[in-house]
């Protein structure tokens, strides 16, 4: 009996390890990075800078939730950054230039994400089009629309209350961080404990098996794209609040950041594998990397190179730590 209970605890430890080990390498890489940076730059570890980093991370983090879900179900959404930008622009145009009440214009902004997601989802699912092209098209449409609306001149000066969404604090904690934390906790649980969440994994794992198991794969797929759009829009709201403007000069970097965070966090681009906690750690890694390079005052031309090299090292480290004992594949 005692032997059995022993093997039970052993098993549960194994299980914990098994579920989190796909990110284990990332944790180690993160720790290495943090230790290195805090030795190299004394200012790195002060509370101010840490809050600063997570506040910066929060936007990519929120967008990455949606991006992650799409990737998890075996698709990809490269329109995320510009959907975010367009959302901010629409809200700014409506609120600032047209005096539409805040709640209404925010709703309109979220509709950008909704529509973009609906377009992405419907075309890629029901017409079975490659999601790369569909979302590329959506991306260009959003980017273009952003320029058309703003005429390349950012629309600034939101009411204070809205700006607080991006710049305010709740006690010592920035509001975007609270939003991110809330969303992550909720979505992590949702992805794990809801039927919808588990079905997302099934879709990415084997769409045909999922279909034959009576799962309505198309409907779920479209919903996931819509959620992707909505999270992008939410991110866009926060960017707008943070920069106090709706601007078409925003959005180009989110795509790579989101993908990098997901992949570093152990998400397989082929779908079916990955966990939100990993993604958030991936985002933090990317954020720390960006911040650290500034802290170390690396020449900005070298920054790109260093970033590339660190990225490769991180992923090598991750893979070496994560390696299941060499078995096939």
């Amino acid at each position, binding site marked *: 009996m005692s032997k059995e209970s022993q093997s039970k605890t052993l098993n549960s430890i194994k299980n914990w390890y098994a579920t989190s080990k796909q990110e284990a390498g990332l944790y180690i890489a993160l720790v290495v990075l943090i230790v290195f940076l805090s030795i190299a730059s004394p200012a790195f570890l002060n509370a101010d800078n840490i809050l600063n980093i997570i506040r910066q991370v929060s936007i990519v983090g929120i967008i990455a939730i949606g991006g992650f879900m799409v990737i998890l179900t075996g698709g990809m959404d490269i329109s995320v950054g510009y959907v975010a930008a367009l959302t901010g622009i629409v809200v700014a145009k409506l609120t600032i230039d047209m005096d539409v009440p805040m709640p209404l214009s925010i709703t309109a902004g979220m509709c950008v994400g909704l529509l973009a997601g609906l377009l992405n989802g419907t075309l890629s699912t029901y017409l079975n089009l490659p999601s790369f092209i569909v979302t590329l098209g959506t991306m260009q449409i959003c980017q273009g629309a952003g320029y058309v609306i703003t005429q390349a001149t950012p629309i600034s000066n939101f009411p204070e209350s809205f700006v607080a969404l991006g710049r305010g604090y709740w006690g010592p904690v920035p509001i975007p961080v609270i939003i991110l934390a809330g969303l992550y906790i909720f979505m992590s649980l949702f992805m794990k*404990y809801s039927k919808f969440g*588990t079905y997302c994994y099934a879709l990415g*794992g*084997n769409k045909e*098996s999922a279909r034959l198991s009576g799962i*309505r794969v198309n409907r779920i797929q479209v919903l996931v794209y819509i959620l992707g759009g909505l999270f992008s829009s939410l991110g866009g709201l926060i960017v707008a609040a943070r920069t106090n403007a709706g601007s078409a000069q925003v959005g180009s970097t989110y795509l790579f950041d989101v993908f990098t965070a997901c992949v570093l966090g152990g998400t397989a681009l082929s779908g079916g594998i990955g966990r939100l906690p990993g993604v958030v750690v991936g985002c933090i890694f990317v954020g720390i990397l960006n911040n650290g390079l500034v802290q170390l005052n690396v020449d900005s031309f070298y920054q790109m190179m260093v970033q590339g090299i660190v990225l490769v090292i991180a992923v090598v480290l991750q893979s070496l730590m994560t390696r299941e004992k060499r078995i*096939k594949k």
Partner: protein
Amino acid sequence: MGTILSVKNISKSFPGVKALDDVSLDVKSGEIHALLGENGAGKSTFIKIVSGVFRADEGEIFIEDRKIDVKSPADAVEAGISVVHQELNIVPWLDVATNFMLGQERTKKFLNVIDKKYSIQKAQESLKRLGFDIDVTKKMQMLSFAEQQMVEIAKVISTNPKVVILDEPTAALAQQERTNLYQVVNALKKQGVGIIYITHIFEEVFSLADRVSVLRDGQYIGTADRENLDEKALIKMVVGREVKSEPRKSIATDEVILEVKGLNVEGKLHDINFNLKRGEILGFAGLAGAGRSEIIRAVFGADRKDSGEVWIEGRQVEINSPYDAYQAGVALVPEERKSEGLMMEMTMEYNNTCASLSKMTNKAGMISYKKVRKRAREAVKKFEISPPDVLRKAKLFSGGNQQKIVVSKCVNADPKILLIDEPTRGVDVGAKEEIHAILDGMVKEGKSIIVVSSELLEVLKLSDRVLVVRDGRIVAELTKEEAGQEVIMQYAMGGKQL
């Protein structure tokens, strides 16, 4: 007859499982050496080591007394070892001829240009030798599962290997093709090739094998000459106990639970009409490619149908997708477990419950992993899934155990009507009886089942009624009493008309 392949003291561990423990085996040239064992005994692992897919932890491999080091499948192929693996390995988008020659292409000197004509010719010839006439310029994807399997077999034996290893080659084949395969295997044997033949089907062992070796739980149990064995002894050797096989008693009622009327799928199915009664097991027999799978897939809503009605319990239901089918109380165990049945990267418990998640929620509508786990543990017990690790990824189970997981998934959904395509493909003798018993138990609970199987004996044993399918048409309906191997084959091959 010299020893051509000799494998010594092989051990192999996977995380959590010792798959092989000090196993030795030798094969003589011109010998058919059957390798038997329960699901998960380590047979596939053994041949994967011999063929360079896995590296052994310990042990040595000799070919004609020469020690070889197989680091990759390429090395094994070079050493003259050819393998048909248990799971299909094809490139779906390439044509049959290219698949057939993959890795063995004859090329011209100029830029390694492939001699395509030769490929086509060779593929066609080899397939014909197996009694198999298909257009080898078709995309592999357009072939049925059985046809794909035949292409693989034909490929392997066409390369003039020294050793041929066949891992459950007939599991996907129907009677006619099996017979063809036996002939080819015997011909290879005459040429002095050493053959390892893995199977769960005992008739094959008795009609083909010269010697029989048995593995159990990764341990080598023993080798015996076929002459010295009878079925009972063999079962005892494989399972370690006796397996009772009792004939089923019919408990079918007269109440029609499922009725299919005028089902047509262009180019595949023509005017299919049949019904299923409560408590009945209805068998579909026919040759490979006859359209049996297509019928139940169309009923299930997995494939589009051009016309036809489905009535369940006297009411017409619209089934246009598997979701609709599940809502109507119909579940399907698909033919191909790897591509249609399982999510290979997901755990056993996930696969086991993903079709019945609605039943796994707590009051708040959240999935209760306690329930999921409990259900998975029950399934492990009921289907004797080994290793009994519900958190193991599906891809890490042996073939037979994977099959059991697929069946358990559909049983968990608790359907009124279970459509089951090749229920015991690759399942060992003991577990096969278990699955049969489970199906029997289900009808006793008032459920109804349609079984499609290429194993005639299985159809005969399970079914209360047998429908014979040929060229997309139902050509005969036979009661349990009328049905027999010969009659069915006659109908199936078109020798006898209704």
